[in-house]
């Protein structure tokens, strides 16, 4: 007997192959493993490329197994090597780089390629797929040089690519052959809602169009459709689908059809050769999503290691779109036919849509748009063909009277241990359950910290919550009450009430008395509690610099290289030649990297060194613009009646007056105002925390607008006649928000949580309550002080926070 290890060779260094390896390594160390990959990268999370495009993650962030992982597990990795042939008789593989390797077991995991349509002219420069890091790099590069882009294909990948390119500043049109977006995952209703939402986010659509030709010079310049219409595009992403990469099977005499044919144990037609993931065709289906790949890998790993396992029976896939602010989900059969019973609810106000299809009373498919909290349960029901009951109906459609939740945990209870819960990180139910039991976890945050589940796209959070509630049973309800962070189960309201009732004065005292798990709190609760103390005890609470997030501690916005930005006040967006001259001089003297005109009508000096900050402030000798703070930022104004022929109110003067009055006060989150001289609304009141629109007889006040991550149009609160009434109402709304807003909660969320009606009552209708609010904010305003001046006047703080010391080194 020899103790030489069996040789396992993997063709393909992507998610399918490496996930299978991870599963194998958990079961055995009897293999000597070699991996060949065409791309020059270690295994990365292809699903998250859209985040790289969007800019929220870097390539490094999406690497799943870094180079060390291969080293630590003794895996020989050859990147940039494409396997060109398998000699199934002699059990060897050969690569394009001339390497050969022999195997005892061979795993093909070559994935798939972008399907490139053979459109005339598509060989021109500027036409790419969206599949790998190289494509992603090309897209990032293109966005810097070109303005117009077309994405061919309105499916999952196409829409994610389009959103990414819009985010990079390109003018993007999605060209889709069908009249419905994502028609393979959504029905007409959901598809229409999706299109409307994406149009709001800036994507344009050319529906029902087929591209006949791409025209241009060396580079593509425009698309010509079969109906003769044209579309300018200097960059084209082809996202019409994927094609299983089965070539290696074909040239090596392994049976293929659309993909490489495999049986229920992922065996191909050649002995000891397996295929897994997108390159494989199982029972006539080639999957293009991540969940089946984990399920296949799991079974294959067990089979290859000789662990008993049931065969793979195919997956019921479900889909989720990774575009922020757009939640869609579908599973199973979702286009209704004559045999289906349809349960549907569409809410155009909340922009949600829900549809469940039954076949002979059993749940066979579902589509969700806008609100996908039921996705986990539905996925389960569809997979198991669960019979619809009154209880399930109540849970799903929100009409059930008695304690929901129950059936949801039942769905989790039935879930197999090795079922993947978090597709991004490949975390199974068992891993989560074990972590909860062994480490005594009680919150989703703790599970994230421990297992990584929910840490990427967050789509599996509802399932993780249900697992938690299932494992902890009644204990869950006691402990998992959502506190403001993982350090405490207490809500903002409870904390604020205790602070007042017990007279607590510092964050330390609050955390000690209220029995925080983590005695000094974390980066989430420390700033929050410091804020609540400040609102409760204006003038008395000593602001804790050490509990402030970096930007508010330094009074400037930190950039990724550790430099800062400086934005001086420019009241109402109006400046003077003298101030501009000062700003220019200081910018030159301190070598700022860029001077940016901000969206809030002021100037941002970018790239100031930390130790120069106090000097820059001193020489500017202008008040801080609070661009870094959860405080009043800008008051955007239009020209108004002073100069504009349409102006009915003096918006510049009123804007500047409000900014001077309310600046420097702490808020739960940043706070923006706009003042317009007439209903043309040039200063865009509809996306501000408070938007003010002048008219002939006075002002109309809007609240809760937001133009950021989750856009929201402001609601009209009331109309007032005089400037004094205007100031009072602004003051009352601000104070009510300061007192009742959760830390970091923008007014757009606050208005929805508290309700416009209540806000109207407290700040407009109930004159007495309104008066107390106004008095409270006036009191708080008497204590504010310019933070830049404060630093300049405090030598100790200035040197400790901003200066770098160079002490002498003595040799020991």
């Amino acid at each position, binding site marked *: 007997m020899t103790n030489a290890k069996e040789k396992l060779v993997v063709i393909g260094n992507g998610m399918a192959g490496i996930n299978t390896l991870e599963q194998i390594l958990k079961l055995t160390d009897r293999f000597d493993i070699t991996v060949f990959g065409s791309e020059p990268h270690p295994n990365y999370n292809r699903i998250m490329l859209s985040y790289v495009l969007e800019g929220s993650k*870097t390539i*490094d*962030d999406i690497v799943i197994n870094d180079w060390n992982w291969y080293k630590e597990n003794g895996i020989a990795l050859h990147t940039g090597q494409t396997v060109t042939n398998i000699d199934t008789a002699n059990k060897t593989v050969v690569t394009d780089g001339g390497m050969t390797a022999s195997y005892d077991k061979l795993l093909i995991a070559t994935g798939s390629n972008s399907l490139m349509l053979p459109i005339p002219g598509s060989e021109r420069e500027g036409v790419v797929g969206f599949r790998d890091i190289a494509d992603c790099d090309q897209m990032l590069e293109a966005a810097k040089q070109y303005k117009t882009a077309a994405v061919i294909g309105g499916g999952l990948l196409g829409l994610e690519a389009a959103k990414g390119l819009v985010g990079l500043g390109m003018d993007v049109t999605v060209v889709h052959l069908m009249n419905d977006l994502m028609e393979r995952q959504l029905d007409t209703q959901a598809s229409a809602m999706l299109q409307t939402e994406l149009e709001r986010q800036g994507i344009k659509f050319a529906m029902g169009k087929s591209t006949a030709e791409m025209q241009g010079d060396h580079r593509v310049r425009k698309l010509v459709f079969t109906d003769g219409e044209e579309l300018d595009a200097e960059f084209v992403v082809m996202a019409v689908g994927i094609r299983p990469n089965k070539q290696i099977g074909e040239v090596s005499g392994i049976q293929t059809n659309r993909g490489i044919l495999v049986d229920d144990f992922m065996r191909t037609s050649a002995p000891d050769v397996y295929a897994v993931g997108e390159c494989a065709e199982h029972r006539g289906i080639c999957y293009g999503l991540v969940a089946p790949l984990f399920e296949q890998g799991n079974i294959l790993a067990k089979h290859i290691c000789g662990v008993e396992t049931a065969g793979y029976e195919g997956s019921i896939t479900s889909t989720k779109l990774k575009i922020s602010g757009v939640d869609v989900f579908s599973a199973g059969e979702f286009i209704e036919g004559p045999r289906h019973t349809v349960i549907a609810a569409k809410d155009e106000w909340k922009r949600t849509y829900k549809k469940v299809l039954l076949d002979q009373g059993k749940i066979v498919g579902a589509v969700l748009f806008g609100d996908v909290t039921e996705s986990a349960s539905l996925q389960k029901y569809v997979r198991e063909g669960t019979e619809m009951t009154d209880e399930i109906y109540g849970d799903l459609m929100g009409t059930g009277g008695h304690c929901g939740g129950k059936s949801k945990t039942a769905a989790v209870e039935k879930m197999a241990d090795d079922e993947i819960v978090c597709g991004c990180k490949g975390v199974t139910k068992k891993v989560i359950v074990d972590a909860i039991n062994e480490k005594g976890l009680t919150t989703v945050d703790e599970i*994230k*910290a*421990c*297992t*990584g589940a929910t*840490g990427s796209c967050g789509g599996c959070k509802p399932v993780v919550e249900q697992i938690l509630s299932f494992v902890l049973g009644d204990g869950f309800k006691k402990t998992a009450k959502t506190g403001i962070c993982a350090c405490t189960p207490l809500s903002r309201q409870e904390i604020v009430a205790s602070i007042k009732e017990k007279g607590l004065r510092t964050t*330390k005292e609050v955390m000690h008395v209220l029995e925080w798990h*983590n*005695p*000094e*709190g*974390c*980066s989430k609760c*420390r*700033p929050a509690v410091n804020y609540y103390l400040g609102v409760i005890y204006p003038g008395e609470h000593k602001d804790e*610099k*050490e*509990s402030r*997030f*970096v930007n508010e*501690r*330094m009074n400037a916005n*930190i950039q*990724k*290289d*550790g430099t800062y930005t400086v934005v001086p006040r420019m009241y109402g967006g109006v400046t003077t030649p003298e101030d501009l001259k000062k700003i220019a001089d200081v910018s030159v003297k301190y070598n700022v990297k860029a001077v940016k005109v901000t969206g809030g009508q002021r100037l941002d000096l970018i790239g100031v060194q930390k130790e120069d900050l106090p000097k820059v402030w001193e020489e500017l000798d202008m008040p801080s613009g609070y661009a870094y703070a959860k405080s009043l930022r800008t008051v955007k104004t239009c020209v108004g009646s002073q100069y504009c022929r349409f102006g009915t109110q003096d918006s510049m003067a009123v804007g500047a007056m409000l900014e001077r009055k309310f600046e420097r006060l702490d808020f739960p989150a940043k706070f923006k105002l706009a003042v317009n001289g007439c209903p043309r609304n040039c200063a865009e009141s509809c996306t501000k925390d408070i938007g003010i629109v002048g008219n002939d007889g006075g002002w109309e006040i809007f609240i809760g607008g937001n133009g950021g991550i989750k856009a929201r149009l402001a609601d009209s609160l009331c109309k007032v006649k005089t400037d004094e009434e205007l100031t009072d109402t602004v003051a009352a709304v601000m104070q009510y928000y300061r007192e009742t807003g959760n830390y970091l909660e923008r007014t757009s969320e606050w208005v929805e949580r508290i309700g416009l009606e209540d806000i109207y009552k407290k700040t407009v209708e109930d004159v007495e309550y309104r008066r107390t609010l106004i008095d409270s904010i006036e009191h708080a305003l008497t204590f504010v002080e310019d933070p830049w001046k404060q630093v300049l006047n405090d030598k100790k*703080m200035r040197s*400790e*926070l901003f*200066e*770098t*010391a*160079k*002490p*002498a*080194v*003595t*040799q*020991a």
Partner: protein
Amino acid sequence: MSPQLNAVSTVSLDAIDRFPSRMGRVFIVGETEIAVFRTSEDEVYAVENLNPHPKGGPLAEAIVSGHYIYDPLYDWKIDLKTGLVQEPDSGQVRTFRTEIADEQVILFTK
């Protein structure tokens, strides 16, 4: 790494009361930037002022909680005792031994 820091040497940084509680200060020792934190228990920890996140950046402006910090740029939780980044993120920052002698904070460069 600067050549001066290869040999063991000591640096007297500053008096302990010149270190604000639960905040960081920056020192340049040799050619290395070092962030020094004083905890609420008046312990002093020193780490290289270089964020272990792939994008880099400083650490000194972090929020300090016990002997952990939450980094100012990416909110990674890092143990000041070991320099280890806490789950689910990973990485390690270089740490330096410190001592408080006669109210002075002393840093050991190796």
